[in-house]
């Protein structure tokens, strides 16, 4: 760690969990509390009977001694993950709301996401300045989502909007109320897989069909991120919302260059095929998209890795992320050293500041760069 210890690190993908989903109940209006007391709360998106993880989805060493699931103890997370690696800000992406992508009950999904936002604002963001939050909204009801963005978007520590998808792709005008609110508050959309991809009739899918196993599905899951990026560009989202920014979390990034090269080439061959596209697709990508680093691919040679990080389309677009406390966490002590020295500061925090603004460093934080 010695060569990287001086860098402030912003970890753009940390999943805090609640000790017990029932802890959320206190943040719900009474009628919804009674509803969930009867129905219980499904907090996961993936169809666990269909795509069961071969081992477990979390790190055993992230399970706190205080009880509860991995990632559920805010002090232990600080002591075991933030402090050892000098992480100045952990962008919290609560995962309990991922379950609503399997819910059919629209008002229930709205009420639950809103309650989770209130819970984490009070109990985590309000607890330590190193915690920042992307408030979660789902695609179930874009008007309600926009209302929640405006309700919570100006709270200290809120730096983005975690958008959960159903079958609608992100280029759809369905999302315009959400994008309008995001632009109004200068909050980027944070797009992370919910786990339901490829599982339900209301889910987005990978190409080709239904992968047989968890690992096979995981090898191609990045396609869902890529498909939504392409859809936003061809659908003219950024012509409608020139200020909108999108943070692609846990979709990988090594596929971006070949995808954009293909899209640019095909668009130049036949611009009529996408009448809402007004300039090179890669120009939209450069202006509006950033990508988190986990899971960092492992090319055959260091030269290939350097070429990726140093590419002009990516150098300003990569944000460090660990995905703590999941099984495939990128260990900051290992991964940051693999990032070529020339772009390390950019990836560790400068690009995040460019994406989220200086508010990604909380006011009381002494680790911010001077």
């Amino acid at each position: 760690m010695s060569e990287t210890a001086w860098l402030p690190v912003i970890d753009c993908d940390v999943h805090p969990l609640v000790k017990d989903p029932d802890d959320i109940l206190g943040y719900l209006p009474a009628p919804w509390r009674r509803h969930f007391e009867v129905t219980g709360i499904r907090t996961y998106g993936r169809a666990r009977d269909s795509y069961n993880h071969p081992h477990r989805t979390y790190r055993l060493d992230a399970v706190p001694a205080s009880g509860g699931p991995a990632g559920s103890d805010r002090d232990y997370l600080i002591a075991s993950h933030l402090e050892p690696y000098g992480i100045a800000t952990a962008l919290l992406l609560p995962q309990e709301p991922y379950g609503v992508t399997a819910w059919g009950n629209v008002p229930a999904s709205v009420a639950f996401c809103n309650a989770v936002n209130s819970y984490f604002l009070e109990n985590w963001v309000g607890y330590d300045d190193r915690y920042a939050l992307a408030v979660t909204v789902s695609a179930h009801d874009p008007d309600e989502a926009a209302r929640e963005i405006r309700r919570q978007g100006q709270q200290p520590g809120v730096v983005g909007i975690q958008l959960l998808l159903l079958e609608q792709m992100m280029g759809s005008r369905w999302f315009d109320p959400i994008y309008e609110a995001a632009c109004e508050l200068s909050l980027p959309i944070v797009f992370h897989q919910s786990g339901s991809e490829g599982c339900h009739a209301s889910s987005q899918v990978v190409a080709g069909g239904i992968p047989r196993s968890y690992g096979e599905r995981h090898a191609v899951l990045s396609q869902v991120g890529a498909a939504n990026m392409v859809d936003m560009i061809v659908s003219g989202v950024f012509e409608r919302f020139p200020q909108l920014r999108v943070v692609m979390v846990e979709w990988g990034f090594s596929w971006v260059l070949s995808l954009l090269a293909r899209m640019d080439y095909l668009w130049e061959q036949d611009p009529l095929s996408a009448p809402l596209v007004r300039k090179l697709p890669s120009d939209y990508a450069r202006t509006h998209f950033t990508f988190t680093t986990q899971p960092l691919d492992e090319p055959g040679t260091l030269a290939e890795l350097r070429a990726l990080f140093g590419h002009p389309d990516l150098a300003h677009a990569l944000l460090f992320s660990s995905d703590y406390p999941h099984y495939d966490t990128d260990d900051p002590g290992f991964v940051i050293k693999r990032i070529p020295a020339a772009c390390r500061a950019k990836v560790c925090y400068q690009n995040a500041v460019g994406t989220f603004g200086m508010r990604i460093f909380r006011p009381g934080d002494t680790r911010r760069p001077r």
Partner: protein
Amino acid sequence: MIIDCDVHAEVREHADLLPYMSLAWRKHFERDEWLRAANLVSSHVRMSDAFGHAQAPAYLPVTDPGRTDLVLPPQGLAVNGWADHPAATVYLQALNSFADEHWASPSSRLAIGVSPHDRAWSAAEIRRRAGSPATGAVAMALVPEMLGSSGWDPVYDACVETGLPLVIHYSGVEGLYLGAAPLSGGVHRSALARLTLMPHLAESNVASLVLGGAFARFPGLRVLLAGFGFSWLPPMLWRLDREWRTFRADVPWVTAPPSEQVAQSFWFTSHPLGEAAGRERAAVLPPGLRSRIVFGSHFPYGADSAGQIDDRLGPGWAEQMMSNGAELFSGTARVAR
């Protein structure tokens, strides 16, 4: 020597296929909408939103001994969007017979069409046509059952037995027609989005074939992924190898990194060269993968020419691609050397 592994030939009129059908099926197909659909079916592979387009020039069999074409009729691929599966086999059988009479030559090798809707018929069709000197490969379009499924074993068994490579090429109705393979994400209403995302079909099926154990069951199976380009390949193989390392206990029949299997059993065509060109964009292709890229012009749709290869990708690429093509067809085709 030019070996072009992605050449398309279309029937001009569906009525041209009627003589290759039984009287009963001829009566079935003699309906106005179908007879006028040849142009519609062939337009799918163009991936254009335009409602009309000029008909492709008629394909003429190659007479130049310095050239070999692999002829892939796109109309045969589009059966992956057909609802009437028995009719699809009749159509393919007629198309294969038509192709044998009109498009084959010692230098024009046919990728015979088989049906993803009827594996028993497909296996029989492969064995029936393998004896013809014109047959160079087996083309099958994609449906939602991915290629690693053991359901395809009858087709693979026939491919391996006859020494014919399996060619996978999009028909253009993927993500568009129900019944065909889906594309990534959700519904794509733009042709640009669908064509941009088409290589995902190749990614998913590479993963499915390797992790699904197709090569453990059929070590001699050879697969040509045509029309999908190749610059997506290195990142895909990094991911695939990583998942195998993490979850290899889940796929015990895969005993080596998937990238090694890909470098042994797969070939990829070059079109569109333009996406891989440009030094700052081109994916770095490790030496082990360079031997897997064959030239495919995609004639007559926005085709690349063999003369463009070195200009676009750098010196030595054209020679390498032609040598790779000869390797792909060694033992199955009389190729110009």
